[in-house]
């Protein structure tokens, strides 16, 4: 075997190194005083890994007989996932130090890194077997993360729902893959692409494959697991699932749709069109009536996935850039919101929206971050969310898809209504039902909130970011 292949996988190797160090530390340092240094070490090592991904030049090309492929694009996608995981690490610490989870603190970081490795493989896969292994590596440990609060029934229930739904979806996806294999006799993307044509077996296999992947990013007919899991899982895990896991799923969908199934574009274009419209509308309508803030953000993230699909639909270069840009802004906005939620939940154990009544009076800074986050999600200028929505609508409109853009625009207005409900609760409603105490947010979480706030504001205003993503291209 040619070991030089591994040089291509520098980011994966870096991640495995961080993973191994933390795992060994956790095994030998467990339950001793040395564990005090675990979290700083985990965050520092991972921050170095993230920075290295941005700074170090990465090789391009294929490895392992074309199974694994690395390009500027996949490196950028992995860097984005790294950024999300770094923010999750910063926000998770306070919750992990609580009584029920403190003894297993180290495991959380290790398991999260294991899922991240799976997502790397999803992004870099050039073979359906590797894609499948990546998806499973990303979703099996994620179920453990959802069930991490061992003493809470809701968390166990969320874990059970997540593992059953994700295995069902990967079973459906595998069934589709088996028919695609039967029709074409290969699993490699590059070999398959010229063989894809409009016949029953290919289309059937493709539909099953697509349904399985749509489960992962919770497009509408396949979204039912998302609100339950997001509500029951610990807040850090919810943030992880709604941001990083969804981003990886979107990338995998985008790459397979355009690199492999481009030839049957007329089949999936209308399918994805209908799902996009349904996802945006149903996500929005159900978000209006939610009383639990994590469930609320679950529906909000469902409708956001619909907006992302607007850019995936046409597969143009501008669409691709818009998708990556959208995910970057979405990552900062959602992580900011979940940072505030985690901060409130850790101290008061409350996740209902009423807990946020009068938050501005007691915790003005948290209220301000939350306001920026929901304004960015709703797409209010001059925050990043406005520009990301603008680019994604522009990319769809450039292809003449005016009806879809119109529906999406109307839904943006609807979404403004329910996002403003939170702002109203924080700034206008009387604070009686609220938490009524001044919270002391943990240091790392504060840093992550500052990073997110800077991200929300700067990504929109500093045009270099868009230029940088645009420069990477296909």
């Amino acid at each position: 075997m040619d070991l030089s292949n591994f040089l291509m996988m520098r980011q994966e190797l870096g991640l495995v190194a961080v993973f191994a160090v933390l795992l060994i530390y956790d095994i030998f340092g467990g339950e001793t005083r040395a564990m005090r240094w675990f979290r700083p070490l985990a965050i520092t090592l991972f921050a170095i890994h993230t920075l290295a991904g941005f700074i170090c030049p990465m090789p391009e090309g294929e490895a392992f007989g074309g199974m694994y492929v690395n390009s500027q694009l996949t490196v950028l996608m992995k860097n984005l996932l790294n950024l999300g995981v770094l923010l999750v690490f910063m926000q998770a610490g306070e919750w992990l130090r609580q009584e029920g989870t403190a003894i297993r603190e180290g495991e959380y970081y290790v398991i999260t890194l294991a899922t991240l490795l799976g997502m790397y493989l999803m992004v870099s896969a050039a073979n359906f077997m590797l894609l499948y292994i990546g998806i499973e590596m990303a979703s099996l440990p994620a179920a453990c993360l959802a069930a991490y609060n061992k003493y809470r029934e809701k968390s166990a229930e969320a874990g059970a729902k997540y593992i059953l739904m994700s295995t069902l979806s990967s079973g459906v996806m595998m069934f589709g893959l088996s028919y695609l294999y039967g029709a074409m006799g290969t699993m490699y993307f590059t070999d398959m692409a010229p063989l894809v044509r409009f016949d029953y077996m290919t289309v059937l296999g493709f539909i099953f494959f697509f349904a399985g992947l749509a489960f992962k990013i919770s497009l509408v007919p396949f979204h039912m697991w998302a609100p339950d899991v997001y509500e029951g899982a610990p807040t850090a895990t919810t943030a992880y699932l709604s941001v990083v896991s969804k981003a990886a799923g979107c990338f995998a969908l985008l790459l397979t749709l355009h690199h492999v199934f481009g030839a049957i574009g007329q089949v999936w274009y209308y399918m994805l069109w209908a799902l996009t419209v349904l996802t945006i509308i149903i996500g929005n309508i159900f978000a209006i009536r939610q009383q639990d803030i994590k469930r609320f953000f679950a529906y909000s993230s469902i409708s956001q996935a619909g907006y992302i699909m607007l850019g995936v639909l046409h597969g143009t270069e501008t669409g691709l850039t818009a998708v990556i840009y959208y995910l970057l802004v979405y990552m900062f906005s959602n992580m900011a919101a979940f940072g505030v939620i985690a901060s409130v939940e850790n101290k008061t154990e409350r996740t209902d929206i009423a807990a946020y009544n009068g938050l501005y009076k007691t915790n003005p800074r948290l209220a301000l971050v939350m306001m920026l986050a929901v304004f960015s999600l709703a797409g209010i200028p001059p925050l990043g969310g406005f520009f990301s929505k603008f680019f994604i609508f522009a990319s769809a409109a450039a292809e003449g898809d005016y009806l879809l853009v119109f529906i999406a625009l109307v839904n943006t207005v609807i979404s403004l209504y329910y996002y403003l409900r939170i702002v109203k609760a924080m700034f206008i409603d009387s604070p009686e039902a609220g938490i009524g105490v001044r919270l002391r947010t943990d240091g790392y979480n504060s840093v992550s909130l500052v990073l997110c706030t800077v991200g929300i504001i700067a990504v929109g205003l500093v045009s270099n970011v868009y230029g940088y993503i645009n420069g990477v291209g296909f």
Partner: protein
Amino acid sequence: MISMEHYLVVSSIMFFVGIYGFIARKNLLAVLISIELILNSVEINFSVFNRYLYPEHMEGVFFSLFGIAISAAETAVAIAIMINVYRLASNIDIRHIDKLKY
């Protein structure tokens, strides 16, 4: 002579029985067994396509092998989570696991 179609009929029946079981069963373990049916039907599919249509390569068989390993891992995680559900809720009947429904 058993042709490819015979195998495919069996695997399709297994797949849809699995889907039906996933929806209709009321016990978490039975749901897990239904999922195993789905995964096994896929593995039959891969092996059969490999054997009858593309016997010169081993890709399909390898996919089946990986699928078996992954479904074993998945069962382990799922059962661990179910044990935890049982500890907290004292049963694994789906109708009673409804804390997150509303």
